[in-house]
């Protein structure tokens, strides 16, 4: 039954349908409506014996999740931006300990300067943390990915973060189907932990590992994440079979058939991109898009296959490595090394700057005409302002 709902509320109801045992909550814009929604569901008895913990910080949130998950509880939290960074130490700890925690990241820019609006710098900053990273294009997909995330996490014993664009998705009201508890129960079996703190079978978790074994432990972490590359498409197929709609997977191609130019992006901007592609296709331009749904593990082979036939690839990303260049762009170049396509890095939407159809149209036309320069292009950059400031810097 479709409903008209706020994205955050849909996520809250979906997470509740997954029947978590412990939810740890610390508020940060723009995730607040998710934890508020879950708090209400738990308090009104909608989740039986689920424990909802109001913790004192994001570091506390992830730490409590670690304790709960290690004790065999299906565990969930949500955060964004500064909160994600504040729990960074705990993120690495959770993945290193192989705990199947699921977390929503309501993507938001990282300060300074403080900025509460959407971009991907938060999740991108933790791309090496050992967490699986999934990116939702729509609120429907955001809700659906949480169901798949719990299944994936618990099957592989790895934590999973579901990324959804802050405000753009979290605070958008749109039409979607919220998975019911019954539907979820058919897809997601009860949590069977690989390791659990239990007086009946004592074990210890979190030993100090020295040089003689550490490398092997990390190698195995990498190998385990790679297993997700096979698991994710399978789980998405099963989801489609059980729920009747396609969500997730490694990536999604849009009108890439015979495309000489392909735009690659993550998250909600894909919707706007698809509108522009439709317009340009109507005018006979062979342009398509690839939406990357799974960023970690990096689906290198799938990206290579999707892009290999193009002449040029425009990577549109909402974060970048200061002092270096595009992050997703680097990863795409890795997949395409030795192959024909030229890769252009376009940085857009930082700190919530809207990415408009008009700007994208101009950008794609430039790309098609090979008028995009080398290095990063910053979409809609105010060149006058930066020129003036650089001049001042140099004058000193």
């Amino acid at each position, binding site marked *: 039954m479709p409903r008209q709902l706020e994205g955050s509320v849909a996520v809250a109801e979906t997470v509740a349908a997954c029947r978590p*045992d*412990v939810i*740890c909550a610390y508020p940060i814009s723009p995730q607040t409506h998710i934890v508020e929604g879950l708090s209400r569901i738990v308090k009104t008895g909608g989740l039986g*014996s*689920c*424990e909802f*913990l*109001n*913790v*004192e*910080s994001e*570091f*506390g949130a992830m*730490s*409590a*999740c*670690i*304790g*709960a*998950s*290690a*004790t*065999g*509880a299906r*565990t969930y939290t949500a955060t964004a931006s500064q909160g994600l960074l504040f729990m960074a*130490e*705990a993120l690495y*700890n959770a993945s290193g*300990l192989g705990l199947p925690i699921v977390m929503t990241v309501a993507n938001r820019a990282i300060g300074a300067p403080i900025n509460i609006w959407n971009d991907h710098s938060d999740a991108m900053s933790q791309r090496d943390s050992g967490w699986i990273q999934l990116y939702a294009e729509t609120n429907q997909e955001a809700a659906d990915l949480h169901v798949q995330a719990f299944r994936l996490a618990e099957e592989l014993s790895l934590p999973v973060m579901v990324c959804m664009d802050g405000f753009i998705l979290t605070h958008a009201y749109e039409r979607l189907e919220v998975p019911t508890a019954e539907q979820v129960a058919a897809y997601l079996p009860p949590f069977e932990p690989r390791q659990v*703190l*239990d*007086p009946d*079978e*004592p*074990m*210890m*978790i*979190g*030993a*100090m*590992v*020295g040089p003689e*074994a550490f490398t092997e432990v990390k190698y195995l972490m990498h190998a385990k994440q790679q297993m997700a590359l096979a698991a994710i498409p399978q789980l998405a197929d099963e989801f489609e079979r059980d729920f009747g709609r396609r969500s997730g997977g490694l990536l999604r191609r849009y009108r890439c058939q015979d495309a000489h130019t392909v735009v690659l992006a993550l998250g909600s901007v894909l919707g706007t991109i698809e509108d522009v592609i439709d317009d340009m296709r109507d005018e006979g331009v062979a342009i398509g898009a690839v939406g990357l749904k799974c960023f970690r593990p990096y689906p290198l082979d799938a990206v290579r296959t999707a892009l290999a036939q193009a002449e040029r690839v425009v990577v549109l990303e909402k974060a970048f490595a200061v002092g270096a260049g595009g992050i997703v762009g680097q990863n795409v170049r890795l997949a395409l090394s030795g192959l024909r396509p030229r890769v252009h890095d376009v940085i857009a939407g930082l700190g919530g700057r809207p990415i408009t159809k008009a700007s994208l149209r101009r950008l794609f036309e430039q790309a098609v005409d090979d008028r995009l320069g080398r290095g990063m292009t910053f979409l809609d950059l105010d060149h006058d302002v930066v020129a003036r400031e650089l001049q001042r810097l140099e004058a000193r």
Partner: protein
Amino acid sequence: MAKQQIKFFQTGSFAVGGRLLDPEQRSVQSDARRSNTLTSGHRACQGCGEALGARYALDAAMRASGGRLIAANATGCLEVFSTPFPESSWQLPWIHSLFGNAPAVATGIAAALRAKGRDDVRVIGQGGDGGTVDIGMGCLSGMFERNDDVLYVCYDNEGYMNTGVQRSGATPPAARTATTQAVGEAPGNVFGQGKSAPLIAMAHEIPYVATATVADLRDLEAKVEYAMGLRGARYVHVLVTCPLGWGSASADTIKIARLACETGLFPVFEAEAGDVTAVTKIRRRLPVEAYLRPQKRFAHLFEPEERTDVIARIQARADRTIDRFGLLP
């Protein structure tokens, strides 16, 4: 809580828990069926007060909970010397996560147990002064404020010992550490106002707060057992001598802890819901010098010249503590 006054039948000895006592009054350690939760083979220093305190505290908690206990341990000496992969000294379900999050991990464990209806299984969080009083303070306070069902034990050796004896918020004034060296015009640690974790715990009005030392191990056991009989957030702060960090003889661990009590520098007391309920009186008061002299971390107060001014300030602190807690009979 009532504690039986025990008469010492062996002159000159403080040995308790022997055949002359009723079985119920004997130390957990005297029981062959004790859990040995922190068993032998760990890498602690000779004379480590923390290993001693942890053994007594954990075995008492295990007896009180019928062996149904899960421990969350902060990074620090205790964690490092007890779990060198692939070995472990622990004989209970045990997790080490990070330095600053042991209270939060314990909170999570307790929440999971509650969600699963396992109220027969109890939770203990533990860490050193660094992980508790400094970097763990935020999580600790959160755990207190929520009144999570966790017993948290802090083993206070007054410094970051595992990393090489650096100053912590619990390091006493004038003490030498690697980051408050015995050089310059005011050698050793500064004279601040201190940071009393037990008083902070009491300010949260949690069900039970107690201090103890490794000089009176039966007292430590009794307090842990009493705490385990309660639900909600409980805090036990144990002074544990560190021969390496304090520069004391490894055979003097218990003696030095006793001197901390007898000089009034470390008050031994209990509190419930924010009010002090019992205090251990000083049997034979000593001047602070008696405590300071045997520790090299205070050597600069005596050589090359005796710093009577500094010692007087330390004495004034002891006097204030004695006054404040009513430590004299």
